[in-house]
Structures are given as C-alpha cells and as structure tokens.
C-alpha cells in the first residue's frame, strides 16, 4: 500500500530524523511512503493566532499537494487534528474546498493511529530498552481523540518498561505561538512538565508532537536532567 507522508514543517525543518524514522516504520509495516515534494505547513500557527487568510492559503496548498485517494500519514497529532477538524471550519463557506477538506480529513492518520489501527504494529513485536514515559499532547488527545494508541505501542515494546506520567495530558506550555507570545508562562509550564517527567524516574520521555517535545527538551536541558527526549517514531524505529 502506498501512503502520502506529511512530514510537517517542524519535523521537516528541525527534526528530520523523526521523519526518517517514520519512513522506516511505515516500510517495515508494508506501507510505502510517498513524500509530496511541494508540501509545506498545515497552517496551524496562523489558524491558532487568528490569521485565517494565511491559514487558508496554507490549507489550500496542502489540499492540492495531498489530493488523491491514498491515506495520509503524519508524525504529528496537532497537524492531523488541524486537517481533520479545523480545515472544515476554515472552508465552511466554500462548498468545493469544504468537500475536499472533509475527504482529506477522512484520509489522514496520525502515525500511532496508523500503526495501531492499520498496520497492527503493536502485535509485531517491536523491541525497546530502558524505561519510557509518555507526554499526551493536547490536540492529539483532545481534538484528535488519540489516547490509547501511543501507550499501546509503548507497552508492547519488548525489553522496555513503560512508566505512566502524572498528569500526562496537562499542557507542556508550547501551544504554538503561545510559546512566543507569553514565554514566561510557557517556560513555567514546561518546568512543571519536566518535574512530572522526573517524578516517573524514566530515562526517556516520548510523545507524538515535535512542538511539545522541543519545549520539553529545553526545560529538561535547563534543569540539567539526564532524560532523553525522543519522538515516538524514533523510539519505535530503534526497535526494528
């Protein structure tokens, strides 16, 4: 099966290793990723900041790049949520694009959703090591409704121990542009998240969104913690 890979602007620019790991995982589970070369950003930063015109420009471009019938897979819960739930809002007065947006929404999968529901990766016997805890990022959890899938995968890792985090679904303070608009509060929230991670005693923290992981990595670094911060795609790909 061929799938379209949406790398997302953050992974593309800052964390290409997470994108490469996504490719390895998909291939291992029989899905050949096709990377539309013209892809850019889903438009979420503009949408969340109230700039609808810019968000619509990005969305329209996305819908053009990812047109077709293939499933779309992305290593980001918030970008998948943007396409699935907010594109229809952006185009609610534009029937033609609305229909296209709804079709894209039906085709898009966040990576762990695809791995569990389509590829059944958790039944395949992936390996892992050490102790792992998991941050449940907001849009993945609440907008997309992906709650169990990441934990299903992490708990299935042979050789690794999954340690649940207290208040795992509390916001890390990234919040897209929130991080830049109110940096002091953002840092305070990331510090609180880092303390929750520390409380688990895990040697690795993972999640499904690069934005949150970036914010968490900074807090962990500032506090001098020895915890490794890795995107779930990287963590799972290591066990192939």
């Amino acid at each position: 099966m061929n799938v379209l890979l949406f790398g997302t602007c953050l992974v593309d620019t800052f964390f290409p290793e997470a994108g490469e790991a996504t490719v390895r995982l998909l291939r291992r589970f029989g899905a050949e990723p096709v990377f539309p070369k013209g892809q850019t950003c889903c438009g979420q930063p503009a949408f969340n900041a109230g700039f609808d015109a810019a968000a619509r420009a990005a969305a329209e471009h996305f819908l053009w790049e990812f047109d077709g019938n293939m499933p779309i897979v992305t290593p980001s819960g918030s970008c998948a949520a943007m396409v699935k739930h907010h594109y229809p809002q952006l185009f609610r007065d534009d029937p033609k694009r609305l229909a296209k947006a709804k079709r894209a929404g039906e085709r898009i999968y966040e990576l762990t959703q695809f791995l569990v529901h389509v590829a059944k990766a958790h039944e395949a016997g992936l390996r892992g090591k050490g102790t792992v805890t998991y941050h449940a990022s907001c849009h993945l959890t609440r907008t997309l409704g992906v709650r169990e899938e990441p934990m299903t995968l992490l708990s299935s890792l042979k050789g690794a121990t999954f340690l649940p985090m207290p208040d795992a679904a509390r916001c890390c303070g990234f919040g897209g542009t929130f991080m830049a608009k109110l940096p002091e509060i953002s840092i305070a929230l990331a510090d609180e998240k880092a303390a929750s991670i520390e409380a688990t005693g895990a040697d690795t923290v993972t999640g499904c969104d690069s934005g949150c992981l970036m914010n968490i990595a900074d807090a962990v670094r500032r506090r001098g913690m020895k915890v490794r911060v890795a995107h779930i795609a990287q963590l799972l790909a290591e066990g192939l």
Partner: protein
Amino acid sequence: MTHEQTSLAFRENSVRALKDSALRAAMKQAADTFGTKRADAFAPVADLEGLRDRASAIREEVLANLPMYVDRFAAAANRAGAVVHRANDAATAREIIRKILADRGARLIVKGKSMVSEEVDLNSHLEAAGMEVVETDLGEYIIQMEGETPSHIIVPAIHKNRRQVGKLFADRLGVPYSDDPQVLTKIARTALREKFLSADAGISGANFAAADTGSLVLFTNEGNGRMVTTVPPLHVAILSIEKMLPSLADLPAFIRLLPRSATGQPITSYVSVVTGPRKTGDATGAKELHIVLLDNGRTEILAGESRDILKCIRCGACMNVCPVYRTVGGHSYGWTYPGPMGLILTTLLTGMAKSHPLVDASTVCGACVEVCPVRVPLVDLILQLRRRKVREGFSDPATMRGMALFGKAAASPALFALGQRLAAAFWPVIRALGGKDVAGRMPAPAKTPLRRRLP
C-alpha cells in the same frame, strides 16, 4: 475601593505572579485538590454525558428565547411580591441599588458572594454614599479586608494560604494569630454574626433564576446566603439576565452539575430558593425584596458570534484545569472574571481595546472544554476572538507582517524551502534577535531538512 482594569498588562501581571512563590503554591494546591475532588464527585454519576447534554440544551433554549424568559421571570417575581428593576449598564445598576438603600436609610449592608456585583463595582459606590458594606462569604470577607478583588469566581481567596489569612486577621481584627482554618472560620463567624443581626439590608447575587416561578436560586456552603436574604428587613438581589432557567423543574440537573464541577461536592451545604418577600405566616424572609436584572452588554453578546459564552453557569471548573490560570492566578487577568471563561467574557464585556492581550492567554489545550458541564465551546470562542483581534487591528505590526509572509511561504514550496535555507544559514542571528526565551528555546534547523533527505 475601585479597581482599575489591568487586562492590557496581562503579561506584566503574570510575570509578577510567577515570581510570587506563595501564590503559586496556593494555586497549585487548590487547583489540584478541586481537580481530584471533581473527578471523584462525578464518578458515581451515571450517564454524565447525557446530563451534560441536557444541561447544555436547557441553557441553549434559554439563550434562544432570552428576552421572553426574562419577561416571564419579571412577571412571576412581581406576582410573588418582589419589585423588579432592569439595568442596562453598570452605572444604572449601582444607582438603582444605592437609591433603594438610601431611601430606606440603610447604613449597614451585609452581602452574599456575587460576581455581578464585582462586575459593576457596587461596593465602592455604596461606600462612597456613606454605607458600610460587609462581605459575608468567608473568602470574600478575607479579600475585602485585604482590599483585593476575587481571584476565582467560586473561591475568591484561592490565592491565599492560611498563614497569610491568620496574619491578616491578627492585624485587622486584633485577635491572637492562628493559622488553623477552624479557628479562623470561628473568628469570622463571630464577627459576621453581629453584622447579620444589625444589618439594615442584605445584598445577594443568584446562581440561577427560575422564569416560571420568579424564584432566585442561591448555592452556598456557609449559610451566609440564607442569612443575607432572610435576616435583614430588606433584600436586594442583583443578577445578570442570562442566569435564567425556563423552570424551577430544570434546577435538579444544575444542582447535580454545578457544585461537582466547582468544588467537587455532590451538592452545596445550602441551596436557597427565594420566591418573593416574606408573606404572612412565613417564618423567615426579608420584608421587602428588590431584584435588579443587569444587561451590561449581554444583549449585544447574544446577538453576536460569541453568544455561547452566555451558556456559562459560573462553576469555575475551566479555571481549575487551565494550565495558564493555575500558574498565574486570577488577578493577572486584570478584571472580574479570570481563566478561560473569564478571558472570553472580559473581552466581550469590556471591549477588545481594553483587553486584547487576554485572547492570547490560553494555550488552547482544550482541558477547559473537557470539563465544562454545559459544553461551552471555550477553545472555539477563544480562536474566534483571536480572529476578531486581527480583524479589528489590535495585532502588533510585526505579527501582521510575519503572518502575511507565512501565508505566502506556506502556499509556495520554493519560498518555503528558501525560508528553511535562510533560517539554517542565519540561525545564530535569528537566535540572538529572537531572544533567549523564544528562539533560545528552539534547536537549530537541521543542515539537511527532511525534504532533501527523501528521494
């Protein structure tokens, strides 16, 4: 005392709050406690989602026909013997109440907790007219003594710890210092008991108003609501028009939802239903009851795109779970209503010009939506206000330019790729310009982005 709105200084306010370790500890502990108790309180409620749907539908029905329900309430309250007044704005409400009290020579007034009275800044107006106004909710009593405003709509003194309260009582009331909540409550009770007995009038708010019977409904934990509304000869209630319920029969759903959402209690200690003044043969009740129905911008909100905020039943659950509120406290928001519901209501009631920084005071994480008992779409409303802020020109020029450029780059792969290359090449400069708290928290762009790594 009057309180200037400081919502424009949200960031400065919050930076100050972040440095206040006592505040942060008190907030964290209180919010955690309420969060846990809320979850426990809802555990035995069968079909919670169905209950929320029902409550949400009742509130929507009220909004769809608000003028009718307000008229129906006013007529029913009149029939029950109350005098109903309508106030379009804060100044009118204050003046109506002052005049009622002054005409009857009232000097000492006891008050139950009412956020609407905070909204219209009632106390300062009455005090300026020479009246003594005593807040009788323990939390309100504490912050009144301190000269502060509530920092939470249910727990006004949430930002204070018991040692601070102990010191305040010792300083102001001349009692020996104690930080035992039981002792402090007893001290307040003794002081307030005297006030209740000698007050000329009582002022209360209302959690709900039943349109069919003209009844006011008050939820309290300390019994002070009952004292305020029944002991003094005169009772004045002030409430905003959207507090209507179609019928008293709708109340049970809200009795089940509001206290659980607010403080994690299955029910509050007292649920008072006040229908008209005391009648012949009644054992308790004020001899005279006046009800002030406040609009203060609600009719305009009702006609606009943000009307869903008027579904809110003021339980404060959204605050307790909001990562921003929990961290910076209610005073940072700079006006009467804090947290997710508060930043929306404040912006709508006081205008974008006075409050636009508030629309950014959310990570839009959605925790508030998850707990709202009447399904107010808080995140959608916040995003809507952000769009309005851009539309009305309150976004700063740098953000406007940046977002315009973002739109262009997102629609043009060549420009996007160029942007990536430039960001990688000039990262040290961007990092320096972006400051340590923003760009300094981001890693450098990869030398080879994903798009150039894949075939």
